[in-house]
């Protein structure tokens, strides 16, 4: 696609429920990133993928968070048993070595846990 696409754009869920956030990167971008941004705060790195592999998962806040990427394209970030502190915007980005690894972001998925 023309840009990084994320869905849903907004999600309200009840505490304790599981949520899945989807990211469709720019076509041909091999690297994919997930960040989290709480209201008024900076960008918190969560995880990156090179192809389908996530070499470093240390940025994930807890074991309730997981992410996968299939076919070197779409990625899903899953949050299990959501808590109120999970409320934030989850930003996905992608990059390509051919473009100097410039990161291009999507518009984010706004998650509210009530």
């Amino acid at each position: 696609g023309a840009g990084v696409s994320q869905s849903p754009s907004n999600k309200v869920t009840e505490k304790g429920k599981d949520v899945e956030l989807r990211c469709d990167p720019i076509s041909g971008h091999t690297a994919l990133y997930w960040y989290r941004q709480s209201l008024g705060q900076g960008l918190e790195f969560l995880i990156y993928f090179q192809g389908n592999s996530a070499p470093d998962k240390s940025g994930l806040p807890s074991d309730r968070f997981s992410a996968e990427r299939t076919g070197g394209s779409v990625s899903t970030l899953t949050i299990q048993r959501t808590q109120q502190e999970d409320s934030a915007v989850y930003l996905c980005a992608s990059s390509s070595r051919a473009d100097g690894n410039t990161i291009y972001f999507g518009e984010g998925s706004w998650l509210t846990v009530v």
Partner: protein
Amino acid sequence: LAKTTQPISMDSYEGQEVNITCSHNNIATNDYITWYQQFPSQGPRFIIQGYKTKVTNEVASLFIPADRKSSTLSLPRVSLSDTAVYYCLATTSGTYKYIFGTGTRLKVLA
């Protein structure tokens, strides 16, 4: 990975030139410097990228001195719509764990 440091906030008036400096003392030889702009409720947007000396595009200029331990984003004649948070980031082709700093919150006043 190079850690970046920026001022937390800056105020400016419309029509002025704004310079935002980022420190990256431990920048690696292969690192590029990339600046992003973020408006409220939107994802960060790429502004400019450079390796050394000066880079200019239709939006901004980026100055990187010879030692590359800092860089300065220059926004000419800012307008109210330039009010945003600006992030600098050191990126290296081949590594992907990019940690953003706190960013600089620029407020442009009428």
